[in-house]
Every structure is written in C-alpha cells, then in structure tokens.
C-alpha cells in the first residue's frame, strides 16, 4: 500500500515542471500518508546521483550538487537558426555555389551579413571562391558538416520541388501573411 503511494509520489514529482507542495501532491496521488511517502522516497535517493529536496515546503528532484561539474544548467547554448538563417541555408544548399546577390534575388529580401556569418560559424557553409563576373563576388557552398548534421548522404538526397509539393510543403498558404513575416524578418536582420 505505502509502496504504491511512494511510486506515485516519485512519478508525479519527476514529471512535474515545478516543485510541488504536499497539498498539490495529494491532488494527484489521492489520499494516503503523503508525508511519509516523501520521506521514504527521499531516503531511497539519498547519496544517489539524484536527490529529492525541499524548497520552502515544496519538493522536487535535482541532480546531486557534487556532480554539477558533469552538467551545465545553461541550455541556451543550443540555438536554433532564425527564419532568415534557415531560408538562406536552404537556398545555398539547393543552388550552390551562390553569391549573396543571388541568394537575395531568390529570397526576395536582403540577406544580412550576420546571417551568413552564423551559417559559417555553425560550420555548414563556407566561401567557395569568387564568381568571375564584374565585382568578383564571393560565392558560398555547403560543407560536409552540413550533410552530416542534416543526416544527408549527399546533396542529391535533398527532396526535390516535386517531393516538397507532394508533401504539402509548397502550398502558398496565406501568402500575404508569409510576405509580412518575411518583411518583418528582414527588418530584424
């Protein structure tokens, strides 16, 4: 019986986004000696890699403080590409090698220098020489890291326009709205 409450308390605290008070635990777990169950769970985790701790009358699990050096609580480090970034990357991947002016012609909006910098910092895009036309603009291409990050064997594995259309990714859904969003993006760059 008490083992059942212990399991329930353990699961609810584990799945909760916030520390829980005895009362909120009771709302999930139902009647029973919640306090005793918490004590039992805390005891079982003592000295393990994970601990049950109380903060102002509310309980939550956390990794043991002495193991903090193995982790870092800063998840900000993984950053997703902006819309401008992913569009620029897609254009380079499908049309490489391309110059910045060509990317802009395809995207229909300006490409900020920072956008290309981010793609190069990510290791997905590299300068691939210059186009032998007036002004000799730099041209860009994708890297092997690009292929491995996106799980592609070669650029030929990129879905073609027909595939995109068949998958429903080419429907000009609310084109006016898209356009607005793009303009806003361009302002952000």
């Amino acid at each position: 019986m008490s083992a059942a409450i212990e399991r329930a308390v353990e699961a609810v605290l584990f799945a909760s986004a916030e520390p829980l008070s005895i009362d909120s635990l009771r709302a999930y777990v139902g009647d029973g000696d919640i306090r005793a169950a918490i004590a039992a769970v805390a005891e079982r985790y003592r000295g393990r890699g994970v601990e049950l701790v109380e903060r102002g009358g509310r309980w939550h699990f956390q990794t043991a403080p002495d193991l903090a050096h193995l982790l870092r609580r800063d998840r900000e480090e993984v950053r997703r590409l902006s819309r401008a970034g992913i569009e620029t990357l897609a254009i380079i991947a499908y049309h490489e090698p391309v110059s910045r002016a060509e990317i802009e012609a395809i995207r229909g909006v300006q490409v900020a220098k920072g956008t290309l910098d981010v793609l190069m910092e990510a290791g997905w895009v590299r300068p691939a020489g210059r186009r032998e036309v007036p002004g000799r603009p730099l041209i860009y291409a994708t890297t092997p890291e690009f292929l491995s990050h996106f799980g592609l064997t070669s650029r030929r594995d990129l879905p073609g326009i027909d595939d995109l259309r068949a998958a429903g990714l080419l429907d000009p859904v609310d084109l006016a709205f898209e356009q607005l969003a793009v303009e806003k993006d361009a302002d952000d760059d």
Partner: protein
Amino acid sequence: MSDAPEQLTLDLEGWEGPLDLLLSLARAQKVDLREISILALVEQYLRYVERARVLQLELAADYLVMAAWLAYLKSALLLPRDPEVEPDADELAMRLQLRLERLDAMRDAGARLMARDRLGRDVFRRAAPEGLRVVRKAQWTADLYELMTAYGRVSARSRPVMHVVHDREVMTLEAAIARVAALVGSAIDWRTIEAFLPEQASVALRRSALASSFLAALELARQGRVELRQEAPFAPLYLRRPAA
C-alpha cells in the same frame, strides 16, 4: 433487398476509397480474411454501389472503376476457365484477397501502435530537466524538416518564376517540310528517314530534326507528296517519291 434493413449505412464519406469499403465488407463476413468468399464480397460491393446509384448519391469515379472491374471479375469467376485468358479470374481474386490482407494488417498494426504507452500521454519525461552542457554538438541547430519547409516557403514565395529557355538548336516543322520535300524529289528508291537528316549536326539538333522530319513526312504523305512504309512498330521508316 428493400425489406431488409441495410447493414452498412450508405455513408461514403466514411470510406477512404474502394479498397477501404471492400475491406469493411470483407470484415463483415466475420471470417478470417484468408477464408472470405471473394464472389460474395464482389456481390456485396456491387449491391452497395447499385444502391448508391438508386439513391442518386454521387459516387467518386474510383468506386465506379472498381465496380466495373469487380463486375468483370464476377463474370470471369462464374464462367468456365478459359486457358487463353491471362491472368485468370482465380489469380485476380487471389491478388485482391492479398491486397485486403495487407491493408488489414497495417490497419491493425496502426491500432496497436496507437494503443501503446505513448510518451506525453501515458508516460512522461522530466518536465524541467536541468539540461546538459553541450559537448560535441554544434552550437547552432536546425533539422531537415525545417530546411525543407524553408525552401518550400521560399519557392512558393518566389513563384511565379520566370522560365528562361536556353537557345537550343532546333529544326522547325516548316524547315523540315521544305527539306524533306526537296530531298524526296530526288529519291526514287525507298530511303530511311535518317537519310533525310542533316549529317553534320549536334546530337540535340539531330533529335529535333528527326522529330520534325517525322511530322513533315506525315504531312507530306497526307498531301500525297511522299509515300511511307514501315514493316512493324519501331521498325525503320522508309520514304520515297510517289510512284505516279
């Protein structure tokens, strides 16, 4: 028919095409799919479509195509087997049964999949993990789906695109008619159409010239200005001046 209440309501919205309807009817036979009577199934389907027709429900074309095919299958199953006809009716019936078994298996598999303990519905991960320092992972992340949608978005936005047709070497129909007419004038014997093509031409131009010259030959034959001969489909095509 009219005194017995229909087992299946005529709700065609509920079916995803004729195969789906056939599977539902087959399941209504309440036997292992390997044991079903295809003939009974065919009759049920035809009755069903007939009823929809009487009620003047609009049936999608693929239901009618299937009905026509099943009607053919039914008559073939009822007739004595004609060894000349390939594939025979039993084979067609067997193939239909195999298709139904496969669809049924996947429908069943889908249901079993959905009934599993699903993450976020039945089982839960930690809602607020501390997160880990990213060791050998790219700082920037994006996935293939995002890349595809982004390109789809850009393409959709930039359409309609301007199509630039590169200058290609072609022989127009007019040019071909003039050329074939002139050359055939000097030909008394049969000559293959290839003999009428420009000799010193690129591969692309020769292909264009072949297509144009073929059309030119047909046009000239229609006008009685050339005779054509071909032994068999895809055999060499011969041209000559009309004998008269």
